[in-house]
């Protein structure tokens, strides 16, 4: 009997999570697929996707989603690597920095968006400061449809602030499991800090970089609340369009089509990272 209860225990512990995942993730994904591919008479159709693609905002949403990805992800990763390396040196007061870096992790994206809105808006904090410094005598319109680059820039800044911490956390964890001996061997054999980072630390950090990139890219495809708060629909993104079709246009089918598209991009990106960052079989010692 004892043996049996020990076999059952781990599964029974997994049950709550399993129920949660099924109800809140697996079922909605299934429903999204049904909505995206089902005609009113329950037959299979591509009509929703066609309608999605023909929508005027579709091209913009696609373009802006990828532009944000291209602008934010590389910058964030570089920034996060630098932050993680700094923290890893354990300089005096590094825990304080860790706490400061972690603040955005605790804030919801909509709240973050609104906070940045209060900074960038016409009478926001940034304009007050610029005004008092005498740089501009009248407010600069960061968030104007007439100045798309500035608006886009504010989103890049806000998104970077919000999501760099998670990348840094993953990288820092990865750094901490690299045995200290590798750092020391690099030092003894003549590497400067820069060379050590380039030729030893970053290659050894590759698995963590892979994880960080996957997570960050998934987040980038799902970017929505911050963009919505700062730019409304002037800068449309895929996730935002999905929301808009569902709430404003009351069309769950096209909303689902957008959701499925985001899912496809996400899976493709993940596959790319897994493939691109793969350790060769020889390096892993499999042959």
């Amino acid at each position: 009997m004892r043996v049996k209860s020990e076999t059952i225990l781990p599964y029974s512990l997994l049950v709550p999570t399993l129920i949660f995942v099924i109800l809140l993730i697996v079922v909605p994904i299934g429903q999204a697929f049904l909505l995206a591919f089902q005609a009113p008479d329950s037959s299979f159709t591509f009509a929703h996707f066609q309608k999605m693609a023909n929508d005027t905002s579709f091209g913009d949403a696609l373009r802006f989603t990828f532009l944000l990805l291209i602008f934010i992800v590389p910058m964030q990763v570089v920034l996060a690597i630098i932050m993680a390396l700094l923290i890893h040196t354990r300089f005096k007061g590094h825990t304080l920095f860790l706490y400061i870096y972690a603040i955005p992790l605790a804030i919801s994206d909509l709240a973050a968006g609104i906070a940045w809105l209060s900074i960038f808006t016409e009478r926001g904090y940034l304009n007050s400061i610029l005004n008092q410094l005498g740089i501009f005598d009248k407010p600069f319109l960061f968030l104007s449809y007439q100045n798309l680059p500035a608006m886009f820039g504010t989103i890049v800044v806000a998104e970077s602030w919000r999501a760099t911490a998670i990348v840094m956390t993953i990288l820092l964890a990865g750094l901490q499991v690299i045995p200290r001996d590798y750092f020391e061997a690099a030092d003894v054999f003549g590497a400067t800090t820069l060379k050590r980072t380039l030729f030893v630390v970053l290659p050894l950090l590759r698995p963590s970089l892979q994880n960080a990139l996957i997570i960050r890219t998934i987040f980038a495809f799902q970017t929505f609340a911050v963009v919505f708060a700062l730019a409304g629909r002037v800068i449309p993104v895929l996730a935002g369009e999905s929301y808009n079709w569902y709430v404003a246009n009351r069309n769950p089918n096209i909303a689902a089509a957008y959701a499925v598209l985001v899912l496809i991009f996400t899976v493709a990106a993940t596959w790319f990272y897994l493939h691109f960052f793969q350790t060769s079989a020889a390096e892993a010692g499999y042959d």
Partner: protein
Amino acid sequence: MAGIRFQSIRKVFGKTVAADSVSLEIRDGEFMVLLGPSGCGKTTLLRCLAGLEHVDGGRVFIGDRDVTDRAPRDRRIAMVFQSYAVFPHLTVFDNIAFGLKMQGRPRDEIKRRVEESARLLELTDFLKRYPAQLSGGQRQRVAVARAIVMQAAVLLMDEPLSNLDALLRLQMRAELKRLHQEIKATTIYVTHDQVEALSLGDRIAVMQSGRIVQCDVPMNIYDYPANKFVGGFIGTPPMNFLPGVVHANGDGPTVVVGESHLAPAPAFAHALSAKNGEPILLGIRPENLTLAPNQQANTIRARVRVVEPLGSHKLLTMQVGTEISKVSVAPDQRVAPNEDVWLHFDPEKIRWMDAATGEAISATVE
């Protein structure tokens, strides 16, 4: 090539004194072994030399250069790590070449030197492999090759053999000795294995609690341990210790051990006479005790407890009074457990020690 000088090195970790004013000079080309139990400070001393630890006091010299405040890369050293620290993302070739690349050596020089040191360590066939494709022993050789390719003034080795299995360790030990005879780099070798120390060292510095308790050539360390700790740490099995009391009379001193009187070697007569009536410790190695057929001078009654035939010799566990002593005898010696025998002490081989401090008593040189 360069000698090394530690000058009153002090290193403290929290409340632990890892190196307590350690001074040591190592000659150019010498193979120096730092030997001691874990936590004695031997690795700390090595890391202070490598620049991987900042000293809390004292100076470190390599050759004539004071390197105390220099970064590891400016010390012209090479090191073999206990974990090997062979980079897993680089091939064997690139691992060995790492240091030369950091120095910005020309490509053909790197190739030539890497191939040469790979040949010395029989790694030529493995240059294109990754560390994960190698056995532990091969990885260890890569770590050694990476160090010797630097032709550094000083070669540091931190327990390089401790992760190998027994047979491989034996092979690599001889291999390292051959290598040192070939390249003659000043080498500091840290180990807790006294056999490695005896086998490899030109000299051995025995450490305990952050201090060097004895530094000498291996056979002197073995035959004349400076104190009870060194005698008890070195040798398999280690030195036997028996308590006794000094009796001095007109004919010179004797030492009473149990019911027997032992006569010390003449060189100790003077030193021991001064300790008349005082307790004393007798240290003797297992191979310097023999079984005597009957009671004679310098014998003690003892009972055989355990007989272990070990091929090249028999190891006896003997009860001497209330103490246990190990005795090494010839393999054909006829002896049975629970037999009462006479144990003969060779007076010339006895190391007398102060019972309170454990410090060896010096012979009087006349």
